[in-house]
């Protein structure tokens, strides 16, 4: 582990390093910066939707631009890089190797992210994070849309390079004395999510190229005026991005597999079921993409297949939840900040999953489709599970990365405010959807129920905003002036953990 504040180095040494912990640190700082930026955009959106009529955003085009960059930033520039951050830190240590298999490729994969982020933020496209044709092909204004496409292209290449690196590091560089069956579950999480990435992402890479050539008028794959089919884009998109849900969530579950046993002071209940559930999720992730497209006129048989494929994820998710609860059972749990986030994460994971079962039932999907129910559902999943797991792990890794402790009280305040805010925002959005409010709208009529619920949602969003400001202040202050951490046992849990946190792979 690097103790940056104990042994400070010039920043350029870290920036141009290919060492796995340095690259991990760069990934972490970048991803957190984008998290705060994307979150700030969400607050602007919620300010606009606080009440009917124009509030702070001048027109619908600007709203759509903010909306697009919010989603793109948080998915591609926060969640994915934050997972890579901790993977870089821990995977080589967990498989007992000196670094990632290809250190230079690792650094290149990271350095693709800032230019891609710059393209997305400087362009500020307006066709939402999925860029559906026909709008994206025919009407979306350039160069913003083209910059978005190039940005996503670069991020896709970065993800694939990073994933290849994880797969090779785990499969080829793992210590011979460490069988896969004994490998920590977090490393398993990286192996499965990397395999999904390598299979899923190239499809979207192809779709982006086709979209670009369509925009240039050189082809008409998705342009109905040239005989193309816009629905084909949706299939290509969701073939990548439903598995992407698992690419995002599997590392977060892996983080929880680190946190629960450590703070419960007992081993994970079942290593085997955790591995099985990861592999099952990786497989069924590819059997459910078209549940996003029930309303596109698919046949009854197709919809049935994808409904069953979607429901197949339930047993695997339940295995993880059971594993976490069974690990806590009989433990002596120290409720420090990381495990509070992890416990909150499973509670919200379950709620998001229950909403997902409703969405996946095709008759019910027609009443929730394109309504705020869907917004509530996927945000509950992305924020309630993935962000909660990730933020919990940021707290968990903080002493190992900086050599200092974060402020425990403010960490808990951060959790409580975030949990309350998340419930206020995303549970209410489910109900708002049932009341018929469509998603992706800039303004809405003054229907009393809609107005009341939008006010609740916006207040919840501001609570989350305050909690994130506390988080940022805690990170900055504690990394500079926090108490020095006991590096053998920063959380006062006792015992030796099952892999050496003190491992320091020599810098190179």
């Amino acid at each position, binding site marked *: 582990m690097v103790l940056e504040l104990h042994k400070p180095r010039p920043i350029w040494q870290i920036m141009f390093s290919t060492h796995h912990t340095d690259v991990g640190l760069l990934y972490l700082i970048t991803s957190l910066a984008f998290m705060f930026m994307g979150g700030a955009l969400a607050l602007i959106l919620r300010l606009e939707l606080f009440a009917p009529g124009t509030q702070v955003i001048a027109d619908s085009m600007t709203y759509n631009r903010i909306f697009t960059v919010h989603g793109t930033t948080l998915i591609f520039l926060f969640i994915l890089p934050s997972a890579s951050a901790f993977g870089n830190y821990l995977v080589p240590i967990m498989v007992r190797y000196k670094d990632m298999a290809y250190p230079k490729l690792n650094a290149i994969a990271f350095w693709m992210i800032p230019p891609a982020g710059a393209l997305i933020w400087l362009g500020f496209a307006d066709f939402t994070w999925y860029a559906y044709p026909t709008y994206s092909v025919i009407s979306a204004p350039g160069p913003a849309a083209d910059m978005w496409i190039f940005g996503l292209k670069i991020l896709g290449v970065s993800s694939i390079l990073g994933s290849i690196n994880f797969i090779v590091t785990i499969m080829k560089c793992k210590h011979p004395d460490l069988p896969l069956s004994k490998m920590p579950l977090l490393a398993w999480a990286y192996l499965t999510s990397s395999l999904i990435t390598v299979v899923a992402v190239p499809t979207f890479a192809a779709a982006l190229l086709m979209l670009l050539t369509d925009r240039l008028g050189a082809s008409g794959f998705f342009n109905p005026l040239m005989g193309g089919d816009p629905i084909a884009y949706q299939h290509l998109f969701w073939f990548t991005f439903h598995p992407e849900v698992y690419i995002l969530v599997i590392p977060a579950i892996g983080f929880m597999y680190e946190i629960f046993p450590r703070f419960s002071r007992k081993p994970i209940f079942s290593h085997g079921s955790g591995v099985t559930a990861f592999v099952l999720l990786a497989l069924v992730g590819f059997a459910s993409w078209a549940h996003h497209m029930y309303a596109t006129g698919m046949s009854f048989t197709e919809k049935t297949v994808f409904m069953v494929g979607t429901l197949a994820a339930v047993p695997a998710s339940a295995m993880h939840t059971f594993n976490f609860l069974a690990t806590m059972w009989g433990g002596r749990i120290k409720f420090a900040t990381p495990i509070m986030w992890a416990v909150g994460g499973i509670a919200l994971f*379950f709620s998001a999953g229950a909403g997902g079962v409703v969405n996946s039932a095709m008759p019910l999907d027609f009443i929730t489709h394109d309504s705020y129910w869907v917004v509530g559902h996927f945000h509950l999943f992305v924020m309630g599970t993935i962000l909660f797991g990730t933020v919990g792990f940021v707290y968990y890794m903080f002493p190992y990365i900086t050599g200092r402790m974060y402020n425990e009280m403010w960490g808990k305040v951060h959790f409580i405010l975030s949990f309350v805010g998340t419930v206020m925002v995303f549970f209410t959005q489910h109900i708002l959807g049932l009341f018929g409010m469509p998603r992706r709208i800039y303004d809405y009529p003054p229907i009393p129920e809609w107005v009341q619920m939008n006010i609740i949602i916006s207040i919840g969003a501001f609570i989350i905003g305050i909690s994130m400001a506390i988080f940022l202040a805690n990170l900055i202050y504690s990394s500079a002036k926090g108490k020095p951490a006991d590096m053998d046992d920063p959380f006062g849990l006792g015992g030796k953990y099952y892999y050496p946190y003190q491992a320091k792979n020599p810098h190179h």
Partner: protein
Amino acid sequence: MKAIIGLGMVLGLLMILPAIQYALAAGDEPGEYLDRRVEIWGLFYRLMIVAFTVGTVVSGMIVWLVLRFRESNPKANPTSYEESGTW
């Protein structure tokens, strides 16, 4: 024993499959009036009852686990793994 289990499974499937087919084909019965809105909302509420029931059990379990096994609980004891110092 295996044969009995196998036979039981086959018979079970033979009972379940027509029921599923009947349920799925309900909307296509000729001459039958079906208010899809009522049916769909009915299905929604039934699923919500299931979700809330299971949710209550899971959430209740989480709350109980958190309270019962917190280290500050008077009944909390060191786990067997703490003696060896490895978990």
